[in-house]
């Protein structure tokens, strides 16, 4: 069961590939969410993994959470985690988020074209900078990494 999730057009099940993100309607469950915006490159920085860990910790609490991956942080969904700093932890945390049905909002322009990207089929919501700005406006807190 999904918990503590606030998202743009939350997926009913499985991954979605939204082609018209600007038409998305905001669905909010419970109180305003905490928005975790991750832009750090997990191939070179520990901060991306730490951001993921913190997001998971918030999900485990009472606050709804929206996770946004922008820029090189989209590499957090690379199938091969050997190339990522703290790759084992990243695999563990994203698996936990997947079990909790917490989608990743992914910057459309930064989505890797690699065939093996998001091979685990994590639910994703493509977003533009304008979409993220809308999420920022309605978030209770914003954490930027």
């Amino acid at each position, binding site marked *: 069961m999904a918990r503590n999730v606030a998202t743009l057009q939350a997926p009913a099940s499985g991954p979605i590939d939204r082609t018209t993100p600007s038409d998305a309607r905001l669905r909010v469950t419970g109180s305003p969410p905490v928005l975790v915006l991750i832009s750090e490159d997990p191939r070179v920085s520990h901060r991306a993994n730490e951001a993921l860990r913190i997001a998971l910790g918030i999900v485990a609490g009472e606050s709804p959470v929206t996770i946004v991956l922008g820029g090189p942080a989209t590499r957090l969904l690379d199938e091969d985690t050997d190339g990522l700093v703290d790759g084992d932890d990243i695999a563990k945390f994203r698996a936990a988020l997947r079990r909790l049905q917490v989608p990743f909002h992914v910057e459309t322009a930064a989505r890797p074209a690699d065939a093996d990207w998001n091979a685990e089929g994590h639910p994703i919501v493509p977003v533009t*900078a304008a979409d993220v700005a809308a999420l920022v406006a309605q978030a209770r807190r914003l954490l930027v990494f």
Partner: protein
Amino acid sequence: MARVLHLWKADAPAFAAEVLGAAVAAPGDEHTLVCLDGAPAPALPAAVRVRRLAPDDLDYAALVALIFDADRVIAW
């Protein structure tokens, strides 16, 4: 109209600059951006008030006053 204070750091990621630009472009709120530690201000609409934590602008006391005066503070 909410008063939104943005704290902008030199190492803010490029995507944050894009999101900030979209956020301040939306009508309805009054935005002030404070550049910390010599951070260059990103390109923003003219309506956004840009301040600097610097000897010729804000000192820490004034920054704290701005923080408490804002309805919302975002540390990018």
